[in-house]
C-alpha cells in the first residue's frame, strides 16, 4: 500500500491501541452493530477519519476509498465501538453525496463526518423481507413535502438515531422502476414512534418504527422522486462491499490464534481461516479500488458478503470446537458471537438472496 496509506493505518492503529489501553473500550465482535459510543465516533470524526472520501466542502478529506478501507479495517480489527456513525457514514453519506441536493449535502454530510449523527435504515418491512419491491410504506405529496405512512422493521438503532433513511412508495401504480423514492426523516417528527425488539442476546438494537403521516419536506428527498429502486440498488453495493462482511469477528480469530492448543488439528484449521481472511481482504481492497475508479461493483460486493458469511460461520464453528472449554473471557466472546451469528449471516442479504444476485449478474440464473 502506498506510503500515505501505511501512515494512515499506523495512526489509526496507534489511536485505537491507546484508547483500548485506557479502558475506553474492550474489543468486541460485531461492534459495528453493537458498540454504540457517540463520543468515540466524534473522536474519530475530529481526527478526520469519517467521510474521508468525501470532498472537503462537505466535511470530508477527498481521499480515495482505499483510505476509508484502511480506517474501517483498523476499526473492525480492534473491535472498537463504532455503531453510532457506521450506517450513516457507510451508506447514507455516499447516497446523499451521489443523489442529494446541494442543500442536503451541506446540511447532513458535515455532521456525519463529525460523528455527530446516527442514522437508521428504514428499508425492511414485515411483509417484504428481502424483497424491496414489496415495500408498502407510502409517501404522499402534501404541500411542499410528503407525508410518510407505514411500518419499518429490523431498524437498527432507531431509538438512538437523529434521522431515518426511508424507502417508500410514491407511485403505487408504477412498476418497480418508478414506484419508490428515498427520504430522510427526522426521528423527532411527532408522528414517528419506535418500539424495541430484543435480539437473541436479549439486547436492544433492533426496532419497529411506525410512521403515521410523518411530514418530510421536499428538500429531504434523496435524488429523484420515483428513482428509489435504481438508487437503492447502487447503495447496496456500498452496504455489502465493505470489510465488516468478514471482519465482524476478527477479535475472535485473534483469540483463537492465541488461545487454541498447539496441535495439528488447531494449526490446520487456523491456517485455512487465515488464508481465507487474506483472500477476503484482497477482494475488499479490489472492490474499493474499483469504487475509486468510478465503478459500482455490485457483483463483487455480493461475492464478498457471500464468501464473508461462510468464513465467519466457519470461524465461529472452528473457534467453538478449539476453544471450549476455555477461559471466562473466551467463553463470553464465543457466546457473544454465537448469539450474533444468525443476524450477521442475514444482514446485507441472506445467502439465498446473494446467490441469486451472483448467479443472475453473471447473466445465468435467477
Amino acid at each position: 500500500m502506498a506510503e500515505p496509506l501505511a501512515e494512515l493505518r499506523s495512526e489509526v492503529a496507534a489511536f485505537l491501541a491507546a484508547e483500548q489501553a485506557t479502558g475506553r473500550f474492550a474489543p468486541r465482535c460485531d461492534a459495528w452493530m453493537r458498540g454504540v459510543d457517540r463520543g468515540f465516533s466524534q473522536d474519530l470524526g475530529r481526527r478526520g477519519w469519517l467521510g474521508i472520501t468525501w470532498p472537503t466542502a462537505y466535511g470530508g478529506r477527498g481521499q480515495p476509498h482505499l483510505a476509508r478501507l484502511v480506517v474501517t479495517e483498523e476499526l473492525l480489527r480492534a473491535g472498537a465501538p463504532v455503531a453510532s456513525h457506521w450506517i450513516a457514514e457507510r451508506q447514507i453519506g455516499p447516497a446523499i453525496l451521489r443523489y442529494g441536493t446541494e442543500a442536503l449535502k451541506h446540511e447532513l454530510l458535515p455532521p456525519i463526518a463529525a460523528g455527530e449523527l446516527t442514522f437508521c435504515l428504514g428499508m425492511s418491512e414485515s411483509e417484504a423481507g428481502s424483497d424491496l419491491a414489496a415495500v408498502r410504506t407510502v409517501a404522499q405529496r402534501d404541500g411542499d413535502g410528503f407525508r410518510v405512512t407505514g411500518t419499518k422493521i429490523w431498524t437498527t438503532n432507531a431509538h438512538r438515531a437523529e434521522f431515518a433513511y426511508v424507502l417508500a412508495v410514491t407511485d403505487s401504480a408504477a412498476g418497480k422502476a418508478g414506484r419508490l423514492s428515498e427520504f430522510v426523516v427526522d426521528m423527532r417528527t411527532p408522528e414517528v414512534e419506535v418500539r424495541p425488539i430484543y435480539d437473541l442476546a436479549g439486547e436492544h438494537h433492533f426496532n419497529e418504527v411506525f410512521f403515521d403521516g410523518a411530514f418530510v419536506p421536499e428538500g429531504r428527498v434523496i435524488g429523484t422522486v420515483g428513482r428509489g429502486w435504481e438508487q437503492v440498488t447502487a447503495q447496496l453495493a456500498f452496504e455489502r462491499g465493505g470489510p465488516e462482511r468478514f471482519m465482524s469477528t476478527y477479535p475472535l480469530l485473534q483469540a483463537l490464534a492465541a488461545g487454541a492448543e498447539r496441535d495439528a488439528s488447531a494449526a490446520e484449521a487456523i491456517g485455512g481461516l487465515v488464508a481465507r481472511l487474506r483472500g477476503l481482504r484482497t477482494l475488499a481492497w479490489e472492490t474499493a479500488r474499483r469504487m475509486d475508479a468510478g465503478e459500482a461493483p455490485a457483483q463483487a460486493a455480493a461475492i464478498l458478503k457471500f464468501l464473508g458469511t461462510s468464513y465467519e460461520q466457519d470461524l465461529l464453528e472452528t473457534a467453538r470446537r478449539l476453544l471450549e472449554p476455555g477461559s471466562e473471557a473466551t467463553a463470553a466472546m464465543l457466546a457473544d458471537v454465537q448469539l450474533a451469528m444468525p443476524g450477521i449471516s442475514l444482514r446485507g442479504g441472506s445467502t439465498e438472496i446473494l446467490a441469486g444476485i451472483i448467479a443472475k449478474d453473471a447473466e445465468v440464473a435467477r
Partner: protein
Amino acid sequence: MTREEALLLERSLEEALAPLHPADWDPPDDGSLAAEAWALCAELGWDHAGLPEDLGGMGDDVGPLVILAQAAGRHPLAMPLVETALARWALATAGLEQPPEGAILTVAHDGDALALRPAPGGPEATGRLARVPWARHARALVAAGPDGALVVVDLEGPGAAVEPHVDLAGQARDDVVLDAVAVAAADGSEGRRAAALLAPRAEVLRSAQIAGALGRALALTREHTSRRSQFGRPLTRFQLVGAHLATMAAHAALVDAMLDDACRAEDDAALAASAGSLALIAAEAATEVARSAHQCHGAIGATREYQLHHFTRRLWSWRSDGGGERRRARTLGERAQAASAAELWAGTEPSPLRG
C-alpha cells in the same frame, strides 16, 4: 509487463492452443506427451517467458508466467510448459546455463529429500523424488537442495531412473530415483534466491493453472444449465443450480483476486507469503468448483465424451501438488499461532494496489 503486453500474450496463447483440443478430444491417460502442442509452444518460445529480455524472455516478473499458466489451465494439453518455463527461469536466475531450445525440463518440490555428497567430479545426489511432473519426458530437473542451493539433475545421465506414474488426469507424475548422480549446484546468492523462490513460484503457477481450469468448468456449467431443462423448466431457473453457480463464481473470483495479489508482491518474501494463502484458496476452490460443476451437470458430466472431465480431473490433481493442502495449512496455522497480534494481522495484509 504492461497491460497491453499481457493482453497480447494472452491472445496469442489462446489462438495457438484452443484449436489443439476439439470438443470430442480424448487423449490417452498414460502420461504421454501432447507432442504437437509442445513443439508449437517451444517454437513460439513460450517456455522462455521467464528469462531476461536479452535471452528472449519477458523478465524476472512472475506476471508473464502466470498468464502462461492460466492458458495452460484453460487448455488441457499434456505438456510441461509451466514446469519448463519455471525451470528455465530458475536456471537463469541462478546464473546457470540454459539447456538447448526445445528441451523439456521439470521441477521437483521435495529436493530436500536428496542426499548430496561431494565427489571428485562435483557433487552427487542420491535419493527419491516423488511424483515429479513429466519426469519421463524431461532432460533435466531443478530442485531446491537440502542446503538451499539450486540443484540441477540430468535425468538422461547414469544413475538416474524414472518410475512412471500418472495422476487423476492421466498426466505423468513420475518418481525419480537417483543413485550418486552428478548434479550441478548453484549455491551463491543468486542460486539460493532461485532455490528459495522455486516453491512459491510453483505454487503461484499451479494456482494460475487452477484458475484457468476453474474458468472453463464454470463456463461449461453455465452453458449446460442454460441449455438444458428438467421438470419443464431450464436448469438455471432452479434455485439450487443458482446456488451452485454462485459458489463457483465466488470461488473463481477469489482465486483471481489472490493471483493478482501475488503478481503485485513487492519482493520475494511478499511473494512467498501471498503464494501460501493463494495455494490454499486455489485448492479449496478446485474442490468446490469441481463438485458444483458435476452436481449441475448430472450424469453427462461424468463421461469421457463431454469436456468437463478434462478440467475437473486436473483440478483434483493440481490442488494436491507440492505436498498437499494439509501440510500447507498446518504451516500457515503454526505461524499464526506463534504470531503476535500485530504479526497475525500483518500476515493477512494484501500486496499494495497499483493505480
